[in-house]
C-alpha cells in the first residue's frame, strides 16, 4: 500500500506545532497502524530526522496508552479497537491519513502525538477506589454479589483510561471515563459506604480540571474501544443527584 501521512509535529509543550506530510510506501495491509508508524520512524531515522513521538506500550489493546486521532476519529476508522489493534487493511491504497493528538484543555500535548493524561489519575485519586487497607479484608465469600450486578460492574470496569471518550466528545467531556469508575462501585456492595463522597469528589475534580460538560451526543460511547455504555453516565447522574439531595 502507498499512503500519504499528515502528522501533527510539535517539538515540546511550549512550541507551536504544525502538520508535516510524509509519503510512505510498501505497507502490508496486515500491518498494524502503529507498526506502520514504526516503519515511518525507521525511514525518518535513516534520513537523520526526528522520529514521530506517540504513546504506546502493550500493543494488545489493554494498557490504554495509545492515543491517536486518525482521520477524524479517536483510534481510527475501526470500531471497538485501540489504535494498536487497528490494521492497515481498514485503509485503501492511496489514502491520505491525517493523524492528530488528543485535543482537550486537560490533555496538553507533550510532544508530537503524545499528550499528558495525568488528569485522569487525579480524578481517580479523588475516590476511584474502595478505602480498604491491606490485611483488613473479610472472607471473600461473605460479600455476595448478584451475577447480574457483577457483570454490569465488570462492563464498567473494563475501561482502559485511554481518553478516546474525551477526544471524541465535541465538548471534551470526561463523563464516560468518570462514570465508568463510579458505576463499577455503585453496582457493588463494597462501594456503597463511600458512594456519596465518591461521586461528589470525583465530579468536582473533573470540573476543576477543565473537562467540558456532557451534551448527550454519545460520541464517547461510539468511540470507546471497550464499548463502555452511556448508561453509566445516567447512573452517575443518578448517584450524583441522590448524593446532593440526601
Amino acid at each position: 500500500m502507498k499512503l500519504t501521512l499528515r502528522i501533527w509535529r510539535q517539538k515540546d509543550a511550549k512550541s507551536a506545532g504544525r502538520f508535516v506530510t510524509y509519503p510512505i510506501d510498501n505497507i502490508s495491509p496486515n500491518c498494524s497502524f502503529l507498526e506502520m508508524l514504526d516503519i515511518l520512524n525507521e525511514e525518518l531515522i535513516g534520513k537523520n530526522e526526528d522520529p514521530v513521538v506517540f504513546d504506546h506500550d502493550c500493543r494488545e489493546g489493554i494498557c490504554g496508552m495509545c492515543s491517536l486521532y486518525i482521520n477524524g476519529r479517536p483510534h481510527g476508522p475501526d470500531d471497538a479497537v485501540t489504535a494498536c489493534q487497528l490494521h492497515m487493511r481498514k485503509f485503501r491504497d492511496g489514502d491520505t491519513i491525517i493523524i492528530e493528538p488528543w485535543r482537550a484543555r486537560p490533555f496538553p500535548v507533550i510532544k508530537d502525538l503524545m499528550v499528558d493524561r495525568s488528569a485522569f489519575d487525579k480524578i481517580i485519586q479523588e475516590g476511584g477506589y474502595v478505602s480498604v487497607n491491606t490485611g483488613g479484608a473479610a472472607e471473600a465469600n461473605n460479600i455476595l454479589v448478584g451475577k447480574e450486578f457483577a457483570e454490569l460492574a465488570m462492563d464498567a470496569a473494563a475501561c482502559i483510561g485511554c481518553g478516546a471518550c474525551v477526544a471524541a466528545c465535541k465538548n471534551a467531556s470526561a463523563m464516560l471515563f468518570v462514570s465508568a469508575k463510579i458505576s463499577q462501585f455503585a453496582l457493588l456492595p463494597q462501594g456503597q459506604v463511600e458512594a456519596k463522597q465518591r461521586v461528589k469528589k470525583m465530579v468536582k475534580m473533573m470540573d476543576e480540571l477543565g473537562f467540558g460538560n456532557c451534551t448527550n451526543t454519545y460520541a464517547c460511547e461510539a468511540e470507546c474501544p471497550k464499548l463502555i455504555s452511556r448508561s453509566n453516565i445516567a447512573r452517575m447522574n443518578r448517584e450524583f443527584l441522590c448524593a446532593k439531595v440526601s
Partner: protein
Amino acid sequence: MNSSFLRFSSITKKIWMAFLGLFLMIFLVVHLGINLCLLRNDDGAWFSAAAHFMGTNYIVKVFEIGLFAGFILHVLFGIILQVQNWMARPVRYMVTNKTYTPFLSKYMIYTGGIVLVFLIIHFMNFYFIKLGWVANPNLAPDGEPKFYVIARELFRSPAYSILYILMFIVLGFHLNQAFQAAWQTLGVNHPRYNSFIGRFGTFYAIIVPLGFIIIPVYFLLIR
C-alpha cells in the same frame, strides 16, 4: 449574572437543564391546546376566551413567573455550558469529527438558538403587547389586545408563516434529542424503558410541532 450558577457542578447545571426542559415541554402542550382553538370557525371566540383566561387568572399568573424563570434559566445554563464546552478544547482538530452521533445531537445550542430568536419575535408580536411594551393598533376598547386578530393577520403573511413552520421543524429536532437526553441526564436509563422514552420523545417531537404547523397552513391555504 449570578456567579453561583458558574460554580454549580457540570452535572447540577445539566440536571437543571433537563428538569426545566421537561417543564417547558409540558407548557408547550398547553400552548398548543390554546392555539388549536384558532382552527375553530368561530371568529376567534374560543381563542380569545382562552387568551383572556390565561391573561387574567391568578394561578396562571403565578405559573407564568415560574415559566419565565425556567425559560431564562434554561437558556442561561445552555449558554454557560456551551461556553465552558468551547473552552474545554482550545486547540481544535483539523479534521472534523467523524464519529457517529444521533442526528443533530451535536447542534442543540444552534437549534436552541434559532428557537430563541423566533421566540423574541414571537414575544414582540404577542406577549410584549400584553405587557404594553410594544404598541399595537389591534386593541379592544377595554385595552385588551385582540390576539385573535393579530394571529390571523400574521398567519396570512406567507413570509411569517414559512418562518413559523421552519422554526417548528427546528424545534422538533431540538425536542427529539432533548427528551431522551433529559431522562438520561436525570439518570433514567434502563434497557426496559429506553426504547419507550426514545419513541415517546420522537412522537412528541413530531406531533406537537405538527400541531403548531397546521395553524398557519390552515390560515394560508384554507381561510
